[in-house]
């Protein structure tokens, strides 16, 4: 029964990883840029949300509602100041620039908030510990909410990309920018919108991070790693692969942790490496995986 419980908790943890990975994967799909500041920006979102709801004295949920537009705005700034210029100058520049951004964000947060770990647990009341009991199992309401959010984000993204005009424009821009421009798509604006959207997802992930545990200014690096692992593991080449990848990572970590707490992260990294090696061994290469992902995802 312990095993069943571990699997359940891992599944729910996977929802968080999927939510975290969605923004990274989406931005890669549209712009072919892996944003090395992804984790740091999620942590930034959590800090922004905390500042908003504590200074205004409103509920964390209202704080989240105000934080998401701020993140969208940051997405616009990120696109115009960093991503758009770096796209033009070879494959190395986006990596170097976003790594610089991560370093900048982490240390600005540290200089403003210090090294203390923060969390929303005290402010979200019952939600942080309430759970439903199903027989001998306990299902955390918060984790379920986060899992549902991840499903909603991924589902919403699928609907957006396949059914709406902006979604079609995003897909067209990702597939062939020149052709999209010839057809009258303002690809620059489309990329700005995509970046804003990605940052809203990053903001949601930041809120989930703060609600389900603690964060500190230097928590960004690990979040980037988890997000990337979820994207790579979930290599079924579909939108929902991200969810599967997150769940596999979550279960691996939970099972590893149930053997020995030191093994939590080691198990996650090991599964990631194993998937990576198997996939590379099959010859497709992770690049072709990402290409198939982009075709289906975006």
């Amino acid at each position: 029964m312990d095993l069943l419980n571990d699997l359940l908790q891992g599944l729910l943890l996977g929802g968080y990883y999927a939510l975290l990975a969605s923004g990274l994967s989406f931005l890669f799909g549209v712009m072919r840029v892996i944003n090395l500041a992804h984790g740091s920006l999620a942590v930034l979102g959590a800090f922004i949300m905390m500042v908003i709801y504590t200074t205004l004295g409103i509920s964390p949920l209202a704080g989240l509602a105000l934080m998401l537009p701020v993140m969208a705005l940051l997405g616009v700034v990120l696109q115009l100041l960093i991503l758009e210029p770096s796209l033009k100058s070879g494959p190395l520049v986006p990596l170097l620039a976003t790594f610089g951004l991560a370093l900048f964000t982490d240390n600005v947060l540290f200089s403003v908030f210090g090294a203390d770990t923060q969390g929303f647990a005290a402010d979200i009341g019952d939600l942080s510990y309430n759970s439903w009991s199903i027989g001998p199992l306990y299902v955390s309401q918060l984790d379920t909410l986060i899992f549902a959010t991840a499903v909603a984000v991924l589902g919403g993204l699928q609907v957006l990309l396949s059914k709406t005009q902006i979604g079609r424009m995003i897909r067209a821009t990702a597939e062939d920018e020149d052709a999209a421009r010839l057809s009258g798509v303002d690809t620059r604006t489309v990329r700005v919108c995509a970046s804003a959207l990605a940052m809203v997802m990053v903001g949601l992930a930041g809120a989930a991070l703060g609600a389900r545990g603690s964060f500190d200014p230097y928590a960004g690096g690990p979040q980037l790693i988890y997000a990337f692992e979820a994207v790579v593991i979930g290599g079924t080449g579909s939108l929902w692969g991200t969810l599967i990848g997150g769940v596999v990572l979550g279960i691996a970590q939970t099972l590893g942790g149930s053997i020995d707490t030191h093994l939590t992260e080691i198990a996650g990294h090991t599964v990631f490496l194993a998937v990576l090696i198997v996939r590379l061994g099959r010859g497709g290469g992770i690049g072709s995986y990402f290409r198939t992902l982009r075709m289906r995802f975006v």
Partner: protein
Amino acid sequence: MTETYTVQRWTRRSVTCTAVLGALFVLLLAAPALVSGNVVNHLTTLFVYVILAITWNALAGYGGLVSVGQQMFFGFGAYAVIRLSAAGMPVYAALALGGAASGLLAWGLSSFMLQLRGGEFSIGMWVLATLVQLLVSLDPIVQGATGTSLLALNGFDPGARRDDTYWLGLVMMAGVALALFLLLRSRLGAALQAIRDDEGAALSVGVRVAPAKRIMFLLAALGAGMAGSVWLASSISFQPNTYFGVQWTAYMIFMTLVGGIGTFEGPIIGAVLFFAIEAAFGDLGVWYLIGVGVAAMGFALLFPQGIWGWLDRRFALKLLPVGYVLRLQSGGPRGLGRGFARPQGAAKAPTPELPGEMRVSGQS
């Protein structure tokens, strides 16, 4: 048309500069007898930075691989020294082998990591660095995050130890720089510079891209491992969190970008600059790191050729002969030979548009 071309590698300036560097090396060898212990310690730190900058640039600048996980090799080199020393190896022999241990690790990883592209490689390396850090922390000798010390070094006189560490760092720095210099001058060097300029084009003209990248990957790991060993020899204590910290990679990126990525001289200048900036602003702590982040962003976006790349393009400086200079010797009337290589020598002649060392000069 009786134009002929000679390929020139050494110019008068580069001969002078190489001689100056040789003299500087001899002077640095003698430095512990000439300057105070404090200066010796600072110079050792500088050597570590130069090793890190040169090798990261070898990987990113020439191999086109942006690794955010080089701290793995830095930390693993230091860890290997601890382990070898604990196993009874004389401590200086262990220090000399730290880099080799990291090279060995890289050799194992290269079989699959080098198939990754761009950002996938970057984060993949970071994941591996985290994994290696976690595994090293599990070793009872390291005692988790507490860390351990290279106790064997405590038996030596502090002054002698300081000087020995200095010489170790100096020799390793010179060795890494010389190795890269010779590599770049070899046949492989032409391949590497072609990969740097355009990987796809290099592949299409038959450059064997994969082995060239692998050698850069091994060299970068070897260098980072050596740097980790020297750092351990000078600080003695080993904490996994410090040695496997991603800030090492941040420093490497900063030094390489500011100095000039894909040039031989640039990272060395970047390292000296970083060393000076750290000496001046290191006390500011976090604000100094914010500055490093802003500078990395700024240089990547606005000034990607870096200081040396700019100087090189502006003044055609060539201090170290890692490239080719093509000289046109016209047998016909003067003036006919003006222009760029087209006839006989053209097959071997690099195109005039390439940045950096490969440059076709006009009639001499």
